[in-house]
């Protein structure tokens, strides 16, 4: 592999790691809220979170470009804060990836939280645990399989994105040229051998990650209802 390809691999890993970290921080409270809320706005927020699953990446990329561009509200904000502009930077790529991979993190978390019986959390309340205490001592440990699924899917999905990256990040080596873009470049330049190496590595990576995920999540959850 060329040094440029290695740079793309490293950049992709960094992007996926940052995105996954931020998504777990943001997605956990969002998933918790969606799992527990009785708000009538729940379907609306569920839909907003799920949008990236159904929308073409170009649509998301396009609107993010408008939002983060020099005339967009987010762009104005980042510039007034002295942060410069986000499009065509690594930071911009992270922001876009967080939004684009959101449902892949929020939904497993939401399902894991929904699977926790209300009576278990109520038991914690009757044992003197306040709301935050209940969340960290009962809800999070019981949602651990969901947490793992969310992290793996968020990471893998970020590694695999292309359209949003191309629109927000462009193709700047060392800053925004990630693996999927590098493969595209190789194909465009008819460097099929190079394209092959990276593409095959991606296939292997996806396979390993997904098999590992299914293996880890295979054992039946040993909660009380399953034991009875």
């Amino acid at each position: 592999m060329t040094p440029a390809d290695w740079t793309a691999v490293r950049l992709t890993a960094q992007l996926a790691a940052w995105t996954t970290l931020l998504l777990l921080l943001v997605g956990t409270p969002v998933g918790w809220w969606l799992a527990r809320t009785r708000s009538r706005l729940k379907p609306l927020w569920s839909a907003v979170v799920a949008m990236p699953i159904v929308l073409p990446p170009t649509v998301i990329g396009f609107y993010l470009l408008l939002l983060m561009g020099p005339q967009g509200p987010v762009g104005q904000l980042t510039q007034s804060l002295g942060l410069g502009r986000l499009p065509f930077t690594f930071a911009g790529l992270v922001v876009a990836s967080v939004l684009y991979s959101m449902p892949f993190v929020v939904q497993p978390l939401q399902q894991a939280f929904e699977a926790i019986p209300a009576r278990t959390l109520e038991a914690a309340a009757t044992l003197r645990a306040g709301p935050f205490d209940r969340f960290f001592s009962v809800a999070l440990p019981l949602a651990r399989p969901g947490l793992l699924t969310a992290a793996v899917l968020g990471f893998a999905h970020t590694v695999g994105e292309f359209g949003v990256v191309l629109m927000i990040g462009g193709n700047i080596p060392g800053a925004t040229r990630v693996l999927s873009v590098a493969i595209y470049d190789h194909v465009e330049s008819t460097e099929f051998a190079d394209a092959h190496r990276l593409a095959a590595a991606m296939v292997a990576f996806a396979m390993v990650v997904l098999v590992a995920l299914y293996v880890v999540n295979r054992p039946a959850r040993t909660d009380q209802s399953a034991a009875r």
Partner: protein
Amino acid sequence: MIEARLRLPRDGFTLDVALSLPERGVSALFGPSGCGKTTVLRALAGLERAAGRVALGSEVWQDDAAGAFVPTHRRALGYVIQDAALFPHLDVQRNLDYGRRRIPPALRRIEPEQIVDLLGIAHLMRRRPDTLSGGERQRVAIARALATSPRLLLMDEPLAALDAQRKAEVLPYLDRLHAELAIPVVYVSHAVDEVARLAHHLVLLDRGRVVAAGPLADMMARLDLPTARGEGAGVVLDAVVAERDAPWQLARLQVGDGDFVLWARDHGLPVGSAVRVRVLARDVSLTRAPQTGTSIGNQLAGTVEAIADDEHAALALVRVRVGVVPVVARLTRRSAFALQLSPGQPVWAHVKTVALME
């Protein structure tokens, strides 16, 4: 006193109760499913938000008039439900520690060793909840609640999910609970057998209302209440083991101060032990004169106090007073007619079976 006024709209009716429960012993909330008894318990715990007021002695947990509502996790209570709700990710030891660690050391009045011993779970400490039997799980749940040294223990049909054998396994621990720890218990049940065995105070609920409330013995002797219907009808008496007859393996039980004496199977309790005795209405028959040549060993002279119709038109309930202690008999209406029973009339009550409960 534990005092509560609660109002909450439910499907089909409005829960509207005023409770005044003694701050010692077991108070049972009894009624058919869907009568609102679980909701009352949840509202006492603050898990359900009803309108009204909840106070435990001088400690006010809810007072809508003053805008006060103490959240569940700041109420010094223990709560045990039908299916235990143990934490599946913690072993038994850490389930027990969960609540205990969350109260200030100064408020830890009950030692963990005492609880573990009381509920017989010492051998389970390293086990995971999903490896426990239903009865074991329930005992751990009770221990976990007690480990917070609660000022009030709320139990919502803690035996309902267990089969008869497991029930028999857990019941003795519940007996010991109020014998050894002075924690008031509010116990929700729809099983009259459990109530007759455990309760000291009884509140009957139906469709969100209090039908009647009072000391257990008084309530069980009333003929006009739902507890007088069905196979579980019968009085509950406090007695003392007065004599043990070793050759015949029988124990003489003294009820009250007078001539009320019952012979029952000797369960090995020493003379002087206080026991609770249940005499089912179906096990009591009445005659106008004392009988000879009968296999029934317990004959009591009494006076008819009240007669009431039973559920089935063929049956009648008769309350007989033996000294000051009431006994209820279930007869056919034909027999009652043939004996020409009426209030004030002297009769002999024959008790076939006496169930010893403590």
